[in-house]
């Protein structure tokens, strides 16, 4: 039993111990789930949703596309906003602050409804996919802006002093000193943000964007196979978010160094 404890006597844990531990946990989870489902007296009907596999796939692809587009856009928005927050031009600084506080202080669902039915409508923007991606980007962008800004501010003043002393311009300082370090710091929260975007994209179903969740809900509406529709839905999202967290941990380890 003591071999299943981590870091005992400072020795690294054996691979065998890791495998056994994962196995035990998986066994426990499986036991819990089969107990819960057996209590349900549910008539499982997988054939019904197998018919609709095309819908699941299409929805999943749409989620991937929307999330990727939103990630890129939110990075740009976040970066520009972080710089604006530190600008010496006061109106710009205040505009950025207003944007960040508003977005972070309201639920995404509310933002989706307002941006599509009120704002986009006023500007005559029809395409709900474009508006959906913009909404997600603005949402994630606000959080990213704060992460980037605090990353920039965490760079010690002494480094900026050194940069000045050796004759680097402001732009050069950002490029060679600040951003390389901030980028490294940002890897964990950034990948967390990407996973969030993927999950939050499910809310776009509310404005009839045909992404993964809506498609699964439609299949449920046609076949009344609720669990058979929603379990693949969960798995589908995990297929996207698990690799991201794996990549994040690998990158973190690679770029880890003491400061």
């Amino acid at each position, binding site marked *: 039993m003591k071999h299943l404890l981590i870091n005992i006597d400072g020795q690294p844990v054996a691979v065998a111990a890791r495998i056994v531990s994962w196995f035990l946990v998986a066994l426990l989870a499986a036991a819990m789930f089969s107990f819960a489902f057996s209590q*349900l*007296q*549910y*008539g499982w009907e997988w054939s019904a949703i197998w018919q609709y596999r095309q819908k699941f796939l299409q929805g999943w692809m749409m989620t991937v596309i929307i999330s990727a587009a939103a990630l890129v856009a939110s990075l740009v928005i976040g970066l520009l906003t972080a710089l604006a927050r530190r600008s010496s031009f006061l109106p710009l600084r205040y505009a950025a602050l207003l944007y960040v506080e508003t977005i972070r202080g309201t639920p995404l669902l509310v933002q989706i409804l307002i941006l599509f*039915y009120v704002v986009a*409508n006023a500007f005559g923007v*029809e395409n*709900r996919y474009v508006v959906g991606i913009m909404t997600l980007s603005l949402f994630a962008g606000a959080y990213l802006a704060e992460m980037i800004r605090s990353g920039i501010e965490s760079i010690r003043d002494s480094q900026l002093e050194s940069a000045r002393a050796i004759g680097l311009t402001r732009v050069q300082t950002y490029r060679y000193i600040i951003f390389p370090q901030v980028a490294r710091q940002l890897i964990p929260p950034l990948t967390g943000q990407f996973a969030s975007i993927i999950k939050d994209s499910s809310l776009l*179903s*509310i*404005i*009839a964007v*045909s992404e993964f969740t*809506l498609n699964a*809900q*439609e299949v*449920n*509406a*046609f076949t*009344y196979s*609720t669990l058979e529709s929603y379990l693949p839905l969960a798995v589908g999202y995990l297929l996207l978010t698990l690799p991201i967290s794996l990549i994040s941990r690998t990158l973190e380890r690679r770029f880890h160094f003491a400061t």
Partner: protein
Amino acid sequence: MRLRGAILLMTFATVLAFTGSATAVEPVKPLIVGMELAYPPFEMTDKAGKPSGVSVEIATELAKSLGRPVVIQNTAFDGLIPALKTGKVDLVISSMTATAERAKSIDFSDPYLSTGLCLLLKKDSSAKNITDLDKAEVKIAVKKGTTGHIYATTRLKKAQILVLDKESAAVLEVSQGKADAFIYDQMSTYQNWQRNKATTKVILEPFQRESWAVGIRKGNETLKNSVNAFIKEFRAKGGFDQLGDRYLKEMKDEFKRLGYPFFL
């Protein structure tokens, strides 16, 4: 002598008390009726937030006829059948159309209302009927899980289908011109048009006839028979007519004027 009499009396009283309380202790199981309280005037909430409407009254009367207290369970429309299947509700009275597809999962009572699918159109739409709308550039709004949704996905192959959660969202889409039409039942389409006269128009001739029935879990023959008996009786009593007069008077008159049959 006296003592024996007293003991006999006490025993008798005790036995009586126990048998009496035994029958009194057993509680009556409430009748849980599932409906989505977002469909006036059939399923809605009054100002105090309590369930009200035609379906609520039907449910109350039905429960009374079965001698059970009624509990209204507010559930999203596309969650009603799953709730029925898993036993979370005993009946579904939610203006639900009886379709062959749904009948595979649950049982239906005899129909209690006739209606049909109609179209709420955006102001500048030139469509005259449902076939006019089956074009690639046309966007049709439907509410998830309704017969309108099923009709659109199975029968309209060229048009784009916008699947929305809520009736209000679908109406908004049409009134903002984001959708060309909203397929929904005749009565609601009429009401939505009334509320959005400036931005919408209607075609109130149903292109698909439907009837509403009460949803019952499969295998529950006794309950189904009780419900059918109730519907027959209630109609004979004039119960449905009264409900129609109370909740749908304006619509009744308007339909009469327009020459549409009104079946409740």
